[in-house]
């Protein structure tokens, strides 16, 4: 992966394997966000309660959840379409928020599933842990999002 800032925004160059993985993650995410399974802790994290009182929270949710779902749908579709076009990806200034949010949604989903507690990038886990691949994906997503923020600032 290579990232640099240019006059048109940010240029992101992914390796073939990185593009495949990100495509897979985005596709899985799009399917999962549409599932509306509210017993899933990752869904609860992506659609948090705004109030302590459940009545107020439910009222707020009526208006905010469709908007939230629409943003997730739009952001993930934008990333998906960019991945479709090739390994060299041009991210314009108006698209950067969608990329940051969309990558963050993937991190929140994976991080919740892995029950990440402290280290920002997932920390060290033994290679023979069955979740080690997911941990490395989580770490890679953090690195990608962190790099986008670094070149943008």
């Amino acid at each position, binding site marked *: 992966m290579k990232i640099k800032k240019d006059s048109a925004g940010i240029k992101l160059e992914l390796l073939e394997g990185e593009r495949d993985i990100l495509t897979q993650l985005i596709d899985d995410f799009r399917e999962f966000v549409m599932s509306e399974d509210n017993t899933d802790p990752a869904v609860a994290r992506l*659609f948090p309660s705004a*109030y302590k009182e459940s009545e107020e929270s439910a009222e*707020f949710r009526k208006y905010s959840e469709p908007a*939230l779902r629409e943003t997730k749908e739009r952001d993930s579709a934008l990333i998906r379409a960019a991945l479709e076009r090739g390994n060299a990806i041009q991210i314009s200034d108006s698209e950067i928020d969608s990329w940051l949010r969309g990558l*963050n949604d993937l*991190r929140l989903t994976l991080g919740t599933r892995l029950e990440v507690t*402290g280290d920002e990038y997932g920390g060290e886990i033994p290679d023979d842990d069955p979740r080690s691949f997911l941990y490395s994906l989580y770490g890679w997503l953090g690195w990608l999002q962190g790099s986008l923020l670094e070149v943008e600032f």
Partner: protein
Amino acid sequence: MSNLSTIVAEPELDLQVGLAKPWNIIVWNDPINLMTYVTRVFMTVFGYSKEKSERLMMEVHNDGKSLVATGAREAMEHSVTRLHEFGLWATLEQSS
């Protein structure tokens, strides 16, 4: 006397509306969101400077939460929805 109490009661109601206690947005610490990302979200959603956004982010990080904005309920609800869009864990509570 009953007439007088009616007259007195009405301005009181108006005062309550005008002086309603404002609502606070609290952002809670979570182990997933990157620190630079949280800073960037405060800058984007509230238009705060980088310095102020970093200070609030550090408050969230060190104290577990931070009061990041105060205002009328409708405006604060709108901002909370935007924070949720960015994946921050934000809640609303009325000032005490």
